């Protein structure tokens, strides 16, 4: 099943490979977001016209429209740039990480300093999260403004050599420019998951608030429409200034209903406007987060093995990192308050509270026992260590079914999920068109 493939060994080659991955990822992100953007435009036109009529002057409409349209790419670019620029800070805040200095954590800062010298990297900002769950991660777009975050639990759990291994692993992520890739992924996924997480939080709030079931039901059914209204109203006002609606109105009128082309275009537009609202929630609440999770896993697995190997090379002590991984995953039953969008940043998959089997089955990390196996293959140990034996049942118990832990099983499961979602989409589409054909007769 595992087949060693040659990897570029020099760090500079790896940085190049990572840059290509990043570009690919950004392209994928654009494609993932496209349906949401298209839908927003449609939503702006249909309910906008119902709610507010057609404001503005008709004679100026064309020029205004194009002028307004020219703003859109700049706005998108601005948002993208802001996200890129502040992503590291955002992620640090999401994890509630606090920067620490030499006075506060002399041992930790010294270890980071020494390993940085060994790896030829600038000093990252060292941060601590006050959480008992042992874990660590690194964020940052460039090595010279990276941050290395460890939890209090990690500092308490590991001895000096093991801590060294974990920090070397994170520094390797920084040195290989994995952090940039991962930081971008995290921001993208946070964006893609925004609606899901918002609704989830709202539901949790409702469950805790103790209101009657009728009120709860009414509130829950009101959520999507309120959500859409809240998203649309300000954008509608912004766009009505551009004269988009007048332009569309005129275009619709100029296409004569008698001609076949006009009929087709009108039918497609009308159909899309009808169908899109049904697809939008499906996409936003099911497909987008799932695609995001697959994206994370696709990118993470290989990077984790590579960072482990680099850490072993840097510390000359693969055993210590293997021990650390074993200890962390044994202690990982301790749940941690982690945003689902950032699990791939951590050195070992954090256990989250209140996750469904659905989300848990798309772990961003290769199984810990496999990582320990590989690390031990680098050293001289030939028998599986107690840590590896310990790690295996823990990893297995994290998922409901044992097949989930096997990499192949995991792949099949995620494939099944993808097919399931796609078939739901297809079924909805077929049903809709069947209905359309029947009514048109």
């Amino acid at each position, binding site marked *: *099943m*595992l*087949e*060693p*493939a*040659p*990897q570029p*060994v*020099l760090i500079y080659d790896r940085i190049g490979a990572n840059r290509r991955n990043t570009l690919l990822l950004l392209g994928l992100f654009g494609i993932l977001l496209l349906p949401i953007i298209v839908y927003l435009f449609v939503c702006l036109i249909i309910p906008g016209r119902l709610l507010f009529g057609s404001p503005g002057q008709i004679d100026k409409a064309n020029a205004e429209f194009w002028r307004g349209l020219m703003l859109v790419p700049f706005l998108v670019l601005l948002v993208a740039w802001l996200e890129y620029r502040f992503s590291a800070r955002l992620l640090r805040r999401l994890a509630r990480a606090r920067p620490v200095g030499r006075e506060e954590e002399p041992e930790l800062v*010294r270890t980071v*300093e*020494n*390993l940085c*010298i*060994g*790896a*030829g990297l600038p000093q990252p900002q060292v941060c601590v999260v006050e959480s008992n769950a042992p874990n660590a991660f690194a964020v940052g777009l460039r090595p010279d403004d990276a941050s290395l975050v460890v939890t209090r639990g990690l500092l308490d759990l590991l001895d000096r050599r093991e801590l060294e291994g974990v920090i070397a692993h994170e520094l390797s992520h920084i040195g290989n420019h994995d952090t940039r890739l991962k930081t971008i992924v995290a921001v993208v996924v946070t964006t893609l998951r925004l609606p899901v997480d918002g609704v989830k939080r709202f539901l949790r709030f409702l469950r805790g608030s103790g209101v009657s079931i009728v009120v709860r039901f009414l509130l829950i059914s009101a959520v999507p429409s309120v959500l859409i209204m809240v998203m649309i109203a300000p954008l509608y006002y912004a766009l009505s200034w551009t004269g988009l609606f007048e332009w569309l109105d005129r275009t619709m009128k100029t296409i004569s209903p008698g001609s076949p082309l006009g009929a087709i275009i009108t039918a497609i537009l009308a159909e899309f406007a009808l169908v899109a609202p049904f697809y939008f929630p499906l996409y936003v609440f099911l497909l987008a987060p799932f695609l995001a999770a697959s994206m994370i896993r696709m990118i993470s*697995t*290989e990077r984790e*093995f*590579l960072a482990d*190997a680099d850490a*072993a*090379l*840097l510390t*000359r*002590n*693969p055993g210590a990192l293997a021990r650390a991984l074993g200890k962390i995953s044994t202690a990982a039953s301790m749940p941690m308050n982690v945003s689902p969008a950032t699990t791939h940043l951590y050195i070992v998959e954090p256990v989250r509270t209140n996750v469904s089997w659905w989300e848990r089955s798309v772990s961003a990390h*290769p199984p810990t026992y496999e990582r320990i196996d*590989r690390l031990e*293959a*680098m*050293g*001289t140990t030939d028998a599986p260590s107690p840590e590896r034996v310990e790690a295996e049942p823990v990893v297995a118990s994290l998922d409901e079914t044992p097949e989930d832990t096997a*990499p192949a099983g995991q792949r099949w499961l995620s494939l099944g999920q993808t097919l399931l979602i796609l078939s739901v989409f297809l079924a909805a589409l077929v049903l809709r068109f069947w209905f359309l054909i029947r009514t048109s007769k």
Partner: protein
Amino acid sequence: VDALNIALIVAGLVLLSVLLIYNHLVRSRMRTLEAWSGIDVQLKRRADLVPNLVETVRGYAAHERQTFEELARARSAAHQAQGPAQATDANAKLTAALARLFALVEAYPVLRASESFLNLQNELSDIEEKIAYARQFYNRNVLDYNTRINTFPRMLIARLFAFQPFEFFEADEPARAAVKVEFSSREKA
């Protein structure tokens, strides 16, 4: 005319690749030099710690003049050392002199327990660890650079422009156990 054009294109490509390889080698050399300066900084820091150490010990054991003088000589040698070979030498001498100083300190329990001495000792061990890591980084760069200038086709350009190989910075302690690292990825199929 056609043959001339082809010859010109080939010559242009060759020139371009020579240029690229040359730049690559220069970059690699600069990286190695920078890695060396990383060691140098730590070595100088260690040498600069010696006067403080001598001052502290002198307060308790003023008569051990010979050890102090030897230490001062080793220190100035370490300070003036140029390049890996000299630095290795001077550094081994400084390490030996420091070892003698610490052996001497064993006879003075009050000194050994004093705060300033403990601080210096901690700082020294910190610097020594940093030297070990800096050495590792430097040696990795040297390995990379030396491999580059000794493999075809870079070898030709390296010879042409007289790129000299770097020396490794040897440790005076027994080398740590070698680690076999295998870069392998999961199956892609």
